[in-house]
C-alpha cells in the first residue's frame, strides 16, 4: 500500500481539491465523510450500487416461497372443511406471499449491504482517522511510488488540514 491520506476540515476544500485534481496514475481513490455526500461518493464509486438487484431477487424469491409454501402444505394436508372456498385459496395465500416478498426482499437488501458495503472493504486495507466520523473529510490516493512526490506537491496546495504518507 503506497499512498497519501489527506484530512480536510471543510468539505468545500475537499470538493474544490477534487475538481482541480490532475489526472494521474492513481490505482485507487477513496473519500471519507461523516455523512452521505453524493458528490464525494461518486468519486469513490461512480457506478450505481448493485444492491437494488439483491432487493429485486430477494423479493421475487420471497413471493415464490410464499406461494409454494402455502400451496404445497395445503396439498400435503388437504383440509376439506374450507367453508366453500377452494383448497388452493389464492386471496389468503397472496397475503402470506406478500409478507414473504417484503421479508426476503429486506433480508436480501441487508445481505447486499453487508457484502458490498461492509465485507468487501475488508479485502482492501485502507488507513483511517477517527476524525472522519466526527466531522472531518478525507481523501485516500493510492498510486505507484514514482507518483508519490507529485501527489504530495499537489495535496499540499489543495487546502488540506493535514496529510499522511503510507
Amino acid at each position: 500500500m503506497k499512498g497519501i491520506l489527506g484530512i480536510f476540515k471543510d468539505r468545500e476544500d475537499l470538493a474544490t481539491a477534487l475538481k482541480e485534481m490532475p489526472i494521474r496514475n492513481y490505482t485507487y481513490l477513496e473519500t471519507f465523510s461523516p455523512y452521505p455526500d453524493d458528490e464525494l461518493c461518486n468519486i469513490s464509486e461512480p457506478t450505481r450500487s448493485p444492491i437494488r438487484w439483491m432487493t429485486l431477487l430477494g423479493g421475487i424469491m420471497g413471493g415464490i416461497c410464499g406461494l409454494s409454501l402455502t400451496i404445497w402444505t395445503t396439498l400435503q394436508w388437504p383440509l376439506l372443511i374450507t367453508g366453500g372456498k377452494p383448497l388452493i385459496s389464492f386471496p389468503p395465500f397472496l397475503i402470506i406471499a406478500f409478507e414473504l416478498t417484503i421479508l426476503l426482499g429486506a433480508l436480501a437488501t441487508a445481505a447486499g449491504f453487508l457484502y458490498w458495503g461492509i465485507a468487501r472493504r475488508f479485502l482492501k486495507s485502507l488507513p483511517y482517522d477517527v476524525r472522519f466520523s466526527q466531522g472531518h473529510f478525507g481523501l485516500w490516493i493510492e498510486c505507484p511510488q514514482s507518483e508519490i512526490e507529485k501527489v504530495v506537491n499537489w495535496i499540499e496546495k489543495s487546502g488540506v488540514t493535514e496529510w499522511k504518507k503510507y
Partner: protein
Amino acid sequence: MSLSQLNPDNSKPPGAKTFHKVDQDVLRTLQPGALYFSLLGVCLILIAFGAWAWSQQVRHGLGVTGLKHPVMWGAYITTFVFWVGIAHSGTLISAILFLFRARWRAAISRASEAMTVFAVMTAGLFPIIHLGRPWLFYWLIPYPNERTLWVNFRSPLVWDVFAVGTYFTVSAVFFYIGLIPDLAVLRDNATGWKRRIFAITSLGWSGTGREWKHFSSAYLFLAALATPLVVSVHSIVSWDFAVAIIPGWHSTIFAPYFVAGAIFSGLAMVLSILIPARSILKLEEYITMWHLENISKLIIVSSLIVSYSYLTEFFFAWYSQNPFEQTVFLSRAVGDFAPLFWLMVMCNCLTPLLLFFKSVRCNTTILFIVSILINIGMWTERFVIIAGSLAREYSRASWDTYNPSWVEWSILLASFAWFAFWFLLFIRHLPAIPLAEVKESIHRSFHDHLSNRQEKNL
C-alpha cells in the same frame, strides 16, 4: 465561506451547528442521572408485577381474566392492536417521510424507529399471553413435524404471525442498518471494552464513499419495502376482525380505518415520548417546536380520517338496514359501552381539534396532555370495537358485558413498563438522534443558505 463560519440561525431546525457540537450534545445524553435509574427501577418493578400476574394466569387458567362467553377477546387483543398501531408512526416518520424527502424528520427518525421495534416487541407478547397454553405458541409457525401437520393459511391468525414477524424483522434490520454510522461515532469516542463492543457492532464502518453509496441504496430500498409493509400489517390486523361475521366487525372499511387509527395513535405516542425526552436529555435545539408542530399537523389529518371512519361506520349500520349491525352501534352509543364510546369520541375526535390553534401546538404541556388523551382514546376505541361487538352478538340470549380483571390490568400496565424499559435502555446506550442524518441536514441547510445569499446578491 465555510460551515464553521456560518452564524447559528435558530429559526431553521436543526440550526447551523458544528458537527463537533452535534456529537458533543448527543453523546452527553448517554450519561445517565439519578432520574434515569429511578425510572428504570419503576419499570422493572411493574414488569415483575405483570409477570407475576401472568404466572397466576398460567397456573390457574384464563378463568382469572374477565374473559367469558361471548367476549372471548378482550383487553389482551385490544392491547395487541394498540401496540401494533403505536409501531406504525415510527415507520411513517422513518420510512414514508424519508421517501417523501421530508427533511424535518431527520432529528426524530431514530427515536421513532426505536419506538417501532419496541412497540412490535410489546405487541407480539399479547397473542401469546392470550393463549390458554402459551408454551405451545410455536404451533402457529409452519415447521416440518412428524405428524406432517401444517397451519391453516386461510386463518387470519396465521396471517398475523407472518405480518407481525415480518414487521419486527424488517423494522429491526432498518433500525440497525441506520445505526451503523452512528455506532462508528460512538466507537471513535469510546475507550476500553465499550470501544471494542462498538467496533464490533459498527462492523468496521469508516465512512468511505463506497460504504455511503451502498448504505444510502440499502436504506432507500428498506424504506421502500417498509412502506407497503406498514400498510399491510395493520390491514391484516384489521382483517382479524373484518373477515369474521360478527356485527360491528364485518366491514370493508376496516383496513384503511385501522391504518389511519394506527398512525394517529402512533404519532400521539411519539409526542408523549419526545416531549419529556427532549426536556430531560436537553435536546431542545434538535427536537424543536417546529418538529412538534409538524407532528401535531399530522395528528390533525389522521384524527379527521379516524372521525370520518366513525361516522361512516354508523352510516353503514343505518343504511344497511341490518338489525344486528344497528343493535351493535346503538349499544355503543347509548348502551353498556356508551361511557367508553363517548370517551373515545372526546379523545380522538374533539381533543385533536385543539391542535388547529398554533398556541396549543406551541405549548408543550398542553401538547403532552393531548397526546396522552389520544393514547387513552385509541386504546378505548379498540376496546369498544372488540369487546363491544362481541358482547352484542346475534342472539340476545348470549349478550353479556365484559370487565377486565386485575390480571389483565396488571399485564396492560406492565406492557407500558416493558416498552419504557427498552426505550430507556436505548436512550442510555445509543444516540437518540441520528448523528449522520443531522450532519447531512446541517450541510444541506448551509448550502441552501449560501444559495439564498447568492440569489439576493444577484
